[in-house]
């Protein structure tokens, strides 16, 4: 089994395998998001309190969930890279950061658009859920700025990994903020001790969106990691024979 993992983590093997995986992930993601969007907009009944504005959750919830998931992937990979000096792990961390930043941005903006008609405000300074999510956006920016400020890849990996790990304390704070402090933000609907508090006609499109976004995220992450791997392995023989196949045929 260990040899299998070693083979999987070897850059040329990862590069080839991910190329086969990406189209499937992307296709599954597009199908699920297309269904979820249609069903969420037109088939699900309007919420009895929020009317049609509740439909924003179909993009807001997956974006918010992935914004945190991306951070966990980034921090855990950075930690693995730091402790076991695994090259692929650092590439995953570096690839996850810009995607995480985009999904955090999306979660903040769609939340703000929902908040305007529902809470009567675009933004509430001091609200724990909103503030901690905004802090995560700055953590992503800090991580990317730190990486791009250091030319040496190995040093950039180590320095940014420390930042990613320190910032990871923010993720549980985001998750539990609505329970620990009083927040404008509503509590959890799906992940509850007594099961999801939502009817199935509303739930299924949401699940389709969550899984669809996850597959799309997976495809995007793999593609970004491939780019990282290619650059990091630029001196390796396999990259050379991949990019410059036998003279004449290229």
């Amino acid at each position: 089994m260990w040899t299998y993992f070693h083979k999987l983590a070897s850059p040329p093997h990862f590069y080839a395998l991910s190329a086969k995986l990406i189209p499937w992930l992307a296709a599954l993601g597009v199908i699920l998001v297309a269904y979820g969007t249609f069903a969420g907009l037109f088939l699900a009944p309007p919420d009895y309190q929020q009317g049609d504005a509740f439909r924003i959750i179909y993009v807001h919830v997956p974006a918010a969930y992935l914004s945190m998931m991306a951070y966990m992937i980034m921090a855990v990979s950075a930690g693995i890279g730091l402790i076991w000096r695994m090259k692929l792990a650092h590439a995953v961390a570096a690839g996850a950061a810009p995607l995480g930043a985009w999904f955090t941005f999306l979660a903040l903006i769609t939340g703000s658009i929902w908040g305007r008609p529902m809470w009567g405000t675009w933004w509430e300074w001091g609200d724990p859920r909103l503030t901690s999510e905004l802090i995560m956006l700055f953590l992503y920016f800090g991580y990317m700025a730190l990486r791009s400020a250091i030319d040496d890849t190995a040093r950039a990996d180590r320095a940014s990994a420390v930042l990613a790990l320190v910032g990871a304390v923010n993720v549980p704070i985001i998750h539990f903020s609505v329970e620990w402090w009083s927040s404008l933000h509503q509590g959890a609907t799906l992940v509850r001790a007594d099961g999801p508090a939502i009817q199935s006609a509303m739930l299924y499109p949401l699940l389709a969106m969550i899984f669809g976004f996850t597959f799309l995220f997976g495809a995007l992450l793999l593609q970004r990691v491939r780019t990282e791997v290619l650059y990091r392995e630029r001196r390796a023989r396999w990259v050379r024979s991949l990019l410059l196949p036998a003279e004449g045929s290229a």
Partner: protein
Amino acid sequence: MDIMAMGEYGAYVWSSFTLTLIVLIVCTLQAKHRHEKTVKNLRTRLRAMESEE
């Protein structure tokens, strides 16, 4: 057209979904562009190294 109006919340709902679509497209294009640029740069570099040899 009632179904498109989303009650009184049409502007909020449609702007959220449109922005999401844009972000997903930008993410895809960014990843693709970055990869192509990297391949192109590395290829140029490898060719230059090869001609030096």
